[in-house]
């Protein structure tokens, strides 16, 4: 064993110089002061938190302190912080960062987060932890400042990329790290190139669709740790190995009086006109899908859009119509579908939504996957004298904050698209309507996590609108199976969809048998 030892005794020789030159000498007070400061900076142990007795502008919760200690002591600074949404992963990362800064083990840190969260991170690190973090604005900031918060979208592009890859980071922190599940993406390859000592990956949803995603994530912090593991064969081995690189705190373990999550699945029957359109779309797909196999997913999107709103499907149909050559036989069929849209005068889901909102008489967030549906709902609710405001990914930070403030104030309803799901904290509201469902359970978890998080005082109510006999029922069953995978490896997940609706499952089975599509086509959809 080699211990590299350095012993700088130069000050002793300097003392001699001062002695020979007869000064300059420090005063007794200054000399004593320096010694006292050093005494106060002593760190007694490798493994207990030195930040424990220092001043932080927050009171970290027990599970957050414990997480920081495990990362320091057992994971040696390379970890996935996989707490459920709303348990304060940011606080945990802040504690760990602070701990290493106090120990003098970290001075250069890179924190990559979604663009909408950059300012929030900077604010929290400064105000809660007294860490002087800077939001990246110009490219030189990467090299010039010690602790920089930036967005991964900017970071991976030139000239930023080159600046970052030239740095030698003491710690790399990545928020919403589930975006790094695919090693073929630019994001993943870029992050893998960054030189870092410690590394924290924050994600509430380390597994979304399959286990390989988890393996890739782990490879960023401990390459090869989960490598020789089969897909489904040895779940307990994976679980055990995961424990040395990942911490996952759950709500029920951490609160004396956990907030309950009440899931209401509302089955709906499409109106005759809507059903005609849906059937029309289905038969169009059956007839023409083989012409253009790569387009299968786009066609399934059509089905999903019909279940959302006529507005959503209209845009897609018109685009499809324009892309189809003029002499193609399907052109006429598409046009009859557009005609069918015109026959639809009401939206079953929107009517139900209005009913639910009126019953609740409180703040509600409606999530939809489609911009057109969002626009329609805003218009529809306004017609019925309900103040509703939009929220979507394309908005700037300032506008997002403004919308959040409006929602906190006078507006009763916030209509958000998927992109609005991450990063906003809306604990003052405790009702969510899933107007349509994404294919990925973790995205629903992210949606619900906006309100089911630290600071929520009431039970959280989730309403899932599911139209009978359509692709939505199939989505529900798909979501179920993905949740099972997640549960096997990572642990329990709060109920997202209640599992009691046997009828829906049966329906879904029927649907799979009736559809000409292979099951795996549903699963290959990526976000």
């Amino acid at each position, binding site marked *: 064993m080699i211990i590299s030892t350095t012993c700088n005794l130069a000050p002793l020789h300097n003392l001699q110089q001062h*002695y020979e030159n007869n000064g300059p000498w420090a005063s007794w007070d200054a000399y004593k002061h320096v010694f006292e400061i050093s005494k106060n900076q002593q760190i007694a142990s490798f493994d207990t938190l030195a930040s424990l007795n220092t001043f932080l502008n927050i009171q970290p919760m027990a599970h957050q302190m414990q997480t920081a200690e495990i990362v320091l002591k057992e994971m040696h600074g390379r970890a996935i912080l996989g707490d459920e949404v709303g348990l304060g992963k940011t606080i945990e990362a802040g504690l760990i960062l602070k701990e290493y800064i106090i120990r003098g083990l970290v001075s250069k840190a890179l924190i990559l987060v979604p663009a909408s969260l950059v300012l929030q991170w900077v604010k929290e690190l400064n105000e809660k932890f007294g860490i002087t973090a800077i939001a990246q604005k110009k490219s030189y900031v990467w090299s010039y400042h010690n602790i920089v918060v930036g967005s991964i979208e900017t970071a991976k592009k030139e000239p930023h990329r080159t600046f970052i890859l030239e740095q030698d980071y003491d710690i790399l922190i990545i928020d919403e790290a589930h975006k790094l599940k695919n090693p073929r993406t630019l994001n993943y390859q870029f992050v893998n190139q960054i030189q870092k000592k410690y590394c924290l990956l924050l994600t509430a949803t380390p597994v979304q669709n399959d286990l390989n995603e988890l393996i890739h994530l782990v490879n960023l912090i401990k390459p090869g740790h989960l490598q020789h593991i089969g897909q489904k064969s040895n779940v307990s081995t994976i679980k055990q190995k995961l424990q040395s690189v990942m911490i996952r705190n759950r709500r029920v373990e951490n609160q004396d009086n956990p907030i309950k999550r009440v899931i209401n699945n509302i089955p709906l029957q499409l109106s005759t006109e809507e059903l005609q359109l849906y059937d029309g779309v289905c038969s169009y797909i059956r007839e023409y899908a083989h012409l253009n196999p790569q387009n299968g997913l786009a066609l399934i999107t059509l089905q999903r859009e019909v279940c959302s709103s006529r507005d959503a499907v209209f845009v897609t149909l018109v685009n499809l119509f324009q892309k189809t050559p003029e002499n193609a036989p399907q052109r006429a069929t598409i046009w009859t579908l557009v005609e069918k849209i015109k026959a639809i005068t009401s939206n079953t889901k929107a009517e139900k939504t209005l009913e639910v909102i009126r019953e609740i008489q409180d703040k509600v967030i409606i999530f939809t996957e489609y911009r057109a549906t969002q626009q329609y709902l805003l218009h529809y609710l306004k017609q019925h004298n309900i103040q509703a405001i939009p929220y979507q990914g394309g908005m700037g930070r300032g506008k997002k904050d403004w919308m959040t403030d409006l929602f906190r104030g006078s507006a009763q309803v916030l209509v958000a698209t998927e992109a609005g799901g991450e990063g906003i904290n809306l604990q003052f509201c405790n009702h969510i309507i899933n107007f349509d469902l994404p294919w990925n359970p973790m995205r629903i978890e992210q949606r619900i996590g906006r309100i089911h998080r630290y600071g929520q005082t009431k039970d959280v109510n989730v309403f899932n609108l599911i139209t009978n006999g359509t692709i939505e029922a199939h989505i529900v069953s798909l979501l179920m199976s993905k949740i099972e995978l997640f549960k096997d490896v990572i642990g329990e997940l709060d109920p997202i969809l209640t599992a009691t609706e046997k009828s829906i499952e049966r329906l879904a089975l029927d649907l799979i048998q009736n559809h000409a599509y292979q099951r795996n086509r549903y699963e290959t959809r990526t976000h």
Partner: protein
Amino acid sequence: MKQEHIKAIFESYFVMTGCEIFHSDCTCIQVKLSPIADRTIANRPYYWAFVDNMHQEPEPLSYTFWFAPQQTDLALPLTQTISELITIGNDKLNVIMQELHTQGSYTMLFEKSATPRNIDSYDSWLNVNYMLHFQTYSNRNDVHSIGISLTTGEIVEDFMEQIAHMEFSSTIATAMMIKPVLSMESAQQLIKSHIHNQLTSADHAWAIRASELEINEHNRLKSYYMERNEPELLTKRTTEISKIYAPTLSVEIINCGIFHFLNHFRHKNSKALGS
């Protein structure tokens, strides 16, 4: 380090550098920096390069430094200031501690006497305060303070603790003499071997464990990247792992000085030379 210590460090620095303090209580300090303090702690080299090159009149920044949660209802004299929460690990705190350090590195002091004495020479000691750093995936450190008699070569531990209550002056009292027997060189040699003994006799279990962890990680990386034929990533990752785990031990001298006592310096737990 407690917040009150940190606040005291800031305050003494502002006084030392001639800053204008507008307000100071237990929660915050409001200060307009002096140009020298601005150059040192405000971290804006571009601004100062501009001022220096263009021969402009500098406009130093005003700050409100908080050492406790910020109070918005407090009526403070300055309204246009930059607010900053200061806790341990803060950059400005580090810079200031570094500045104070350079002011308190080397000393030569003489014990003060209230009444005239009938002795004519001081008992002289060399004091060295140092920190031992032990580092692997994490770190710890110890502060040591030793004194060596320049008359007998005797070495005493916890030296600063034993003299903390005494009063010293930077000037020699009249009619007193300094008569060290030991040269500075030989005193230094004795201190070096003392520190060396301390290092070799310390418990190295932590370093053995660290080396094992490092080797395990290296082996895992090797088998993973060899299989994938990615030698560049292997090198990169191996370096990172060594940065985390490789055990290092370092000795850092905090400060050192020569102390002249009026009486024979009597200490607890004295250790004779060569024992």
